[in-house]
């Protein structure tokens, strides 16, 4: 008997991807909830008080995962949009549109939590250092992407125009990431290197677990949103109209 291989490409069709996404969403939701509970517990009750900053440093457990997700989701969005443009695959473009909102929300959270942390830690709510300025630019790029897609009526033109914009703005993400190495301004240097980390283990664990939690949350939310987008854009398709009838 021959080995049965899964034809993964069949999931590039919205009709096949829709039920697959529906089945996986509950799994990601449960994992997200678990990771959030564990991560927040470690972050607030197990991790020790910081020597210099006291208790206010604990906002890092939301700030760093949010900032990381904002950057990562932008790269992912640009990649999906590029695939949708290059291969004329509309599901990939729908994924890019779905990711854009979540990425914008995380970037906004990272800007706000960073600002709130800056007040007790550095004494100011905002400085125009390299990392904060380029994260603000990332926020503007997300807003520009969402606005551009919202103002074009033809969905395929909207997908491709968004792809051009996302790919042009992709250069901003390495700038954010490496800005703390290239310019010596207020933001601290890298906490993680390949070889060592300068934080207490429990703090590191809390941050990593919460980063995983945000990642699982993003997957769950993006899958829900892409299902909504599929129902909107494919509303004339037989597989939907027959299911409704």
């Amino acid at each position, binding site marked *: 008997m021959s080995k049965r291989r899964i034809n993964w490409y069949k999931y590039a069709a919205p009709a096949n991807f829709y039920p697959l996404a529906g089945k996986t969403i509950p799994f990601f939701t449960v994992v997200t909830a678990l990771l959030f509970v564990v991560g927040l517990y470690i972050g607030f009750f197990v991790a020790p008080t910081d020597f210099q900053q006291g208790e206010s440093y604990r906002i890092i457990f939301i700030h760093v995962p949010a900032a990381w997700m904002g950057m990562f989701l932008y790269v992912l969005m640009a990649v999906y949009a590029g695939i949708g443009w290059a291969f004329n695959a509309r599901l990939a473009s729908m994924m890019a549109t779905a990711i854009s909102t979540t990425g914008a929300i995380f970037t906004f959270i990272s800007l706000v939590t960073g600002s709130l942390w800056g007040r007790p830690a550095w004494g100011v709510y905002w400085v125009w250092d390299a990392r904060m*300025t380029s994260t603000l*630019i990332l926020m*503007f*790029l997300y*807003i*520009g992407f969402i*606005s*551009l897609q919202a*103002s*074009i009526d033809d969905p395929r*033109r909207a997908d*491709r*125009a968004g792809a*051009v*914009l996302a*790919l*042009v*703005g992709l250069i*901003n993400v390495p700038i954010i990431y490496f800005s703390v190495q290239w310019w010596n301004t207020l933001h601290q240097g890298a906490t993680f290197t390949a070889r060592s980390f300068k934080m207490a283990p429990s703090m590191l664990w809390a941050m990593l677990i919460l980063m995983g939690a945000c990642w699982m949350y993003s997957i769950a939310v993006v899958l829900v949103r892409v299902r909504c987008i599929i129902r909107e854009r494919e509303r004339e398709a037989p597989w939907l109209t027959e299911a409704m009838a």
Partner: protein
Amino acid sequence: MRAPSLQSMFGWVLWRDLILAWRHRADVLATLFFFVIVTSLFPLGIGPEPQTLQTIAPGIVWVAALLASMLSLGRIFGNDYQDGTLEQLLLTRQPAYLVVLAKILAHWLVSEVPLVLMAPVLGLQFGLSQNSLLIVVVSLLLGTPVLSLIGSIGAALTLGLRAANVLVALLVLPLYIPVLIFGTGAIQSTVNGTATQPWLLLLGATLILAFVFAPWATSAALKISVE
């Protein structure tokens, strides 16, 4: 009939755009007057104290140049898109990159160079020294082509859309920010005595990067918008 060579195609598109701009001089001059008026509003709003004016001058001249160039972006492709010429230009054998480059050059000559020539006069309003005024001109000379190049991407993406003007601003201003930082940094360095050359070199680097990659992104965006 032999197809035109690359050079003659480039020259023809450039010359056509320059002639059309000359016939609609008012549009072009409006951008220049906008620049003058906006730059003049700030001393009126902030107060005439010379120290303050000298400090804010680089930022204001540059931001006004940014806003003025953004207002004029619709003209690069807008008129040709409406009467169908743009489609014909994209259908020719010559690469769209060349057509786009010629149009951007025409836009820069017509909309940005007047700003560059006017800027030292406006700099006098803020009490900048002669050395600073020279760097104002040099930084704008290096920076305004980048504004045209990056702005053309935004103009191409928003061709024919409803709220195109505002949307172009939203798309293009985040990408303008590095140019703004380097340009104002260059002028600031003359005011507070630090080295100017690094800023000008960075401006030159962004110009080279934009010159190579922007027309490519713009022609891709044009093909998407024109379909």
